[in-house]
């Protein structure tokens, strides 16, 4: 569901890190090792699944994937309610 959007992405990341219960919107996902090169593609697929939009691998800007809030801005901006 597109409206759940960023919450789905957060849940997906948390699902892979049972030691964590929350992720702050501006926490750096890569520095904190919540996402690394081996899970990056899966993160892209999780975003595609949650947003319903196909991400173009050729034009990916790694900056868009740094934090939950940058992901939200890049991929869910139009569906943001609160």
């Amino acid at each position, binding site marked *: 569901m597109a409206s759940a959007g960023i919450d789905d992405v957060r849940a997906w990341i948390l699902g892979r890190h049972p030691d964590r219960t929350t992720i702050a919107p501006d926490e750096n996902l890569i520095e904190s090792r919540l996402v*690394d*090169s*081996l*899970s*990056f*593609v*899966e*993160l*892209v*697929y999780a975003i*595609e*699944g949650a947003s319903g939009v196909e*991400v173009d*691998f*050729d034009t*990916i800007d*790694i900056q868009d*994937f740094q934090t939950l809030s940058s992901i939200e801005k890049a991929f869910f901006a139009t569906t943001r309610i609160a």
Partner: protein
Amino acid sequence: MTSRMVSKLIDQDDRFLGILDRLTTKSIDDYYNPYKLFEWPQSLPAAMWWMSPELTTTHGTEAAERLTQEQLYALSRHESINFYSLNVHGIRELLIEVTKRIHTTGFETPSEFFHHFIGEENEHMWFFAEFCLRYGRKIYRQPVGASVEIPRSHVESLLVFARILIFEELVDHFNSRMALDERLDETIRAINRIHHQDESRHIAFGRELVTVLFEDVKRTSSDEELKEIADYLRRYLTFSFESLYNPQVYRDAGIENPLDLRRELLESPARVEFERSVFRKTSKFLEKTGLI
């Protein structure tokens, strides 16, 4: 790990030195001109398997039962283009890493073999890319974030060569089977056969080098660090295997919800069996050396 220590370990290892010699000689004897070797027909028939059906991601799953024979052929075509695309990207990454190390401290002795390795990989990359562009009209992309960063510097070389080995063994599982599969077109069998021939040398070399590098790392690392290496390599095995399941492939084969199909296939019982068979030899080697 200290580079000088690695040099010393290699130079005292008669078994490794003997193998290096034999593999280098074989590289010279088996040398071929890839640019003249293949025939490259205008097109390959669409209504046949492009990949051994047992090696496709839908094999043995409920999803396969929902597809027509024609769809399964199309899927095998796109999956084969994906497989060769993975080779192109994997080779780019390994060429970068091996090129960084040739003729540097620690790698004096294997550098002679690195020349053959780099030369051969460049040629492999060419014929795989050629196949994709001729018969698939594209190379499937990899997102930039997936080009692999190395977690910790003093074990960097070990992880680099362990990754190369895992990648080459995965590919070889496919090559060795498809080279012999009479259901496949001769062009497909030929590239798989030629690649398998070269990769037998690379894999034999990789196993020796990884063993030596690990010997050094083992001595200088804590249990905690060794566990981290094992965890990383286990994740790398899964990552490599799952890259065979490309939603773009399912989309190109006309499947409506590619991400849903991917998830269904990854969660299917057939996946467990498939993964086990792909990495049967690799896991055995990694377990035996104590890497995982």
